[in-house]
């Protein structure tokens, strides 16, 4: 007897249909075999399926069972095929029909219940695109799948329940209502470690992070240990606007592929803040492995990638960031497959000025030689620095200086207030780039700059004068225009004025060459 149960395989963010063909033969010795490039986890599903069926009080058929996964040349990994295999065997024993236009995936427990399985969101997306109307997934993964409208998602608790459902008790597995994306206007519902008003002093650095958040600019902070670089970076998510619907779907896709959505979780609506340690491996950071997985930079898609102690990162990792910083995606090529993961993130880097860290410190002395300092600063390559729009130095503040100032509200703006301004600036950018593929000032290419950032004569004069005086490179020149555009957007003005350009110059790279 031959039974076919449709399921899917996820290759990166792409999904391919997999037919699980189950043959129960009366001839031959009883046994259980899986073929079709099944990985270790798939092969082990034999034991899970057998035990789960037995714990559901169904006799496991004493027949020669062969499972084929077609197409046979695509490698399959993971535990999601437990459900379709078990269902195939059960349909033969209990004699029910597998409904048409349905997809199944889920991992089984020995007691017959289903466990949270990664990739449910991707499967739902595939179901919608390929005309499958029903999707059966574990209950814990149902919310994730239900984020896609137009597919009936059935949350399954255990296989016995599913069998009753197919045997005529439809109500046993009620269809789940689609989960609707809700944009929270005022909350970012993100748990932020620090509010901007907790950061004392650092007015200029705070202003720079505001500009970075408004235009999606990359930013690097250089300063001595304890000057508040990390605190500023951790306060940053609090001033970022929430994800819009399209962005939310993109991010959820990546998280679904990497198994990053928790049981019961659904759409990801907050901007991600990823801060990998500098001992992270290349594959862990940019993605990869023999079966390429998304790395930290992809998990930071549409969010923030915070690299603390930036010059401690190995050269190979820093250079690997160049392509994603430029293109917003990364293609991982392996001999068997090529997978493209989006990686459009805002880079926030922090670094010490020298190996001991105190080169810029007003009180403590630095005991590094000039050679050491130069070597240390050169660890960040020019091409990477060139892709960072805002450069600021963060000086340690004297805590005692602020004791009286604590209540001075003018200087201690809460994150919420800053976020309002950031959101207004982002709205301006969205309106401006409506027809384009880009959505923030930082993504502007030279052609966009020509089109959207026309400079008045006096503004251009200032910029030219500055580029001579501060030795700005051609790329820095363009960066200054982008930053000035964001500053103008923050101010709510249509044209870039001299003042906007002058402020932008404050954040040009020249501000950090130590003598």
């Amino acid at each position: 007897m031959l039974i076919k149960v449709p399921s899917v395989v996820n290759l990166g963010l792409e999904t391919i249909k997999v037919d699980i063909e189950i043959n129960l033969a009366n001839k031959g010795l009883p046994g259980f075999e899986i073929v079709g490039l099944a990985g270790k986890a798939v092969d082990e599903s034999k034991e899970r399926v057998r035990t789960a069926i037995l714990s559901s009080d169904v006799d496991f058929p004493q027949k020669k069972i062969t499972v084929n996964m077609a197409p046979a040349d695509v490698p399959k990994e993971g535990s999601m095929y437990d459900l379709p295999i078990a269902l195939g065997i059960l349909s033969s024993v209990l004699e029910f029909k597998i409904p048409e236009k349905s997809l199944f995936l889920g991992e089984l427990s020995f007691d017959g219940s289903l466990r949270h399985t990664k990739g449910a969101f991707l499967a739902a997306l595939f179901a919608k695109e390929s005309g499958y109307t029903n999707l059966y997934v574990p209950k814990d993964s149902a919310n994730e799948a239900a984020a896609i409208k137009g597919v009936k998602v059935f949350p399954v608790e255990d296989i016995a329940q599913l069998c009753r459902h197919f045997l005529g008790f439809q109500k046993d597995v009620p269809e789940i209502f689609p989960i609707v994306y809700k944009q929270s206007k005022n909350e970012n519902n993100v748990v932020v470690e620090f509010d901007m008003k907790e950061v004392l002093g650092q007015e200029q650095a705070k202003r720079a992070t505001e500009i970075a958040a408004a235009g999606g600019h990359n930013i690097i902070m250089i300063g001595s240990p304890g000057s508040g670089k990390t605190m500023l970076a951790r306060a940053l998510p609090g001033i970022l606007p929430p994800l819009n619907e399209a962005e939310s779907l993109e991010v959820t896709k990546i998280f679904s592929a990497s198994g990053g959505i928790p049981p019961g979780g659904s759409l990801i609506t907050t901007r991600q803040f990823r801060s990998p340690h500098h001992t992270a491996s290349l594959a862990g950071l940019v993605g990869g492995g023999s079966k390429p997985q998304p790395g930290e930079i992809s998990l930071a898609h549409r969010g923030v990638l915070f690299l603390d102690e930036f010059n401690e990162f190995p050269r190979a990792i820093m250079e690997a960031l160049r392509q994603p910083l430029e293109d917003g995606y990364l293609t991982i090529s392996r001999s068997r497959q090529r997978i493209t993961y989006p990686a459009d993130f805002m880079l926030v880097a922090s670094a010490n000025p020298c190996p001991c860290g105190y080169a810029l410190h007003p009180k403590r002395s630095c005991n590094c030689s000039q050679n050491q300092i130069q070597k240390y600063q050169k660890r960040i390559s020019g091409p990477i620095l060139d892709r960072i729009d805002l450069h600021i130095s963060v000086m340690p503040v004297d805590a005692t200086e602020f004791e009286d100032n604590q209540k001075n509200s003018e200087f201690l703006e809460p994150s919420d207030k800053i976020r309002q301004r950031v959101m207004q600036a982002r709205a301006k950018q969205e309106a401006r780039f409506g027809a384009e593929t880009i959505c923030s000032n930082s993504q502007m290419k030279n052609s966009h700059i020509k089109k959207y950032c026309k400079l008045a004569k006096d503004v251009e004069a200032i910029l030219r004068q500055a580029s001579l005086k501060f030795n700005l490179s051609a790329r820095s020149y363009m960066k200054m225009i982008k930053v000035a555009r964001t500053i103008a957007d923050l101010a709510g003005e249509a044209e870039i004025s001299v003042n906007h350009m002058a402020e932008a110059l404050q954040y040009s790279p020249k501000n950090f060459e130590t003598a």
Partner: protein
Amino acid sequence: MAEAVEITSEKYPKILKVALKELQLSLGPKKLYYRGNWDEKIFENCLAVVGSRRLTYYGRKATEQIVTQAAASGITIVSGFMYGGDEAAHSAAVKCGGKTIAVMPCGIDLIHPPSQKKLYREILDTGGLIISEYPGFTQPQTFTYIQRDRIVAGLSKAVLVTEAALESGSLITASYAKKFGRKIFAIPGPITSEVSQGTMKLIKEGAEPIADAKDILDFFKITLKFSKKTALPASALSELRRGKCFTLEEKIIDQLKREPLKADEMARLFAVPVAQLGTALSLMQLKGFINQDNGKYYIN
């Protein structure tokens, strides 16, 4: 090609020979290798100028101001060719067309630190001397720096310490100078600065604190031949007074004349948003009124 002068030679600087008698003669350099034009006149009025490798902006400005006047008036500036204080002294002398002697801690055929090749050339081009007691490509070592210091002090009638931390090489030069009975000058610095502690110690011990080159010139009995105007902001201020600029700029210049400040500190002081302040600072920098170094702003 490097040449050498033996201690027995007539050309060997007398002042150094005399000084080394104070120490044991065996410690003195028997042979001085040199590059450049060996002219005995250059040793007539030597002033050693030494300072911290981690020279601050203030230290550099002060060095430039004093060395420029001294060198332009005919005093030879002797120093150790290290980066920081030494480099500032040599460059200031070279820039005003004065003579300078660099005493190397390494072999005469080596340029150390290599990043100062340009300065090395300039010293020779302006009629200065490069001196070393080590032949060929001898690498600098910890003790050669100290050995070098005794030549720097020995060649000079007086030593000027620009900036020095406690237990620094500059204080070693000063201690040699004391042994040789040389006059010691020191530039006073802010008491909060680490590299003012050494000069402060010297002043307490009897070194003469100086505010301009006149004291040095008096010591050498030379009259000031050239004076560089250092107070640039006067022109800037007059332009401000004519009402061409914003009052914030005026406030900034007024404040920076007294002490260098960070942007954050000024924003707090003047109670203006940092965005507005940044704009003003950039514009003023472009106009050349102020300068920025390591995050702090200075009057030009």
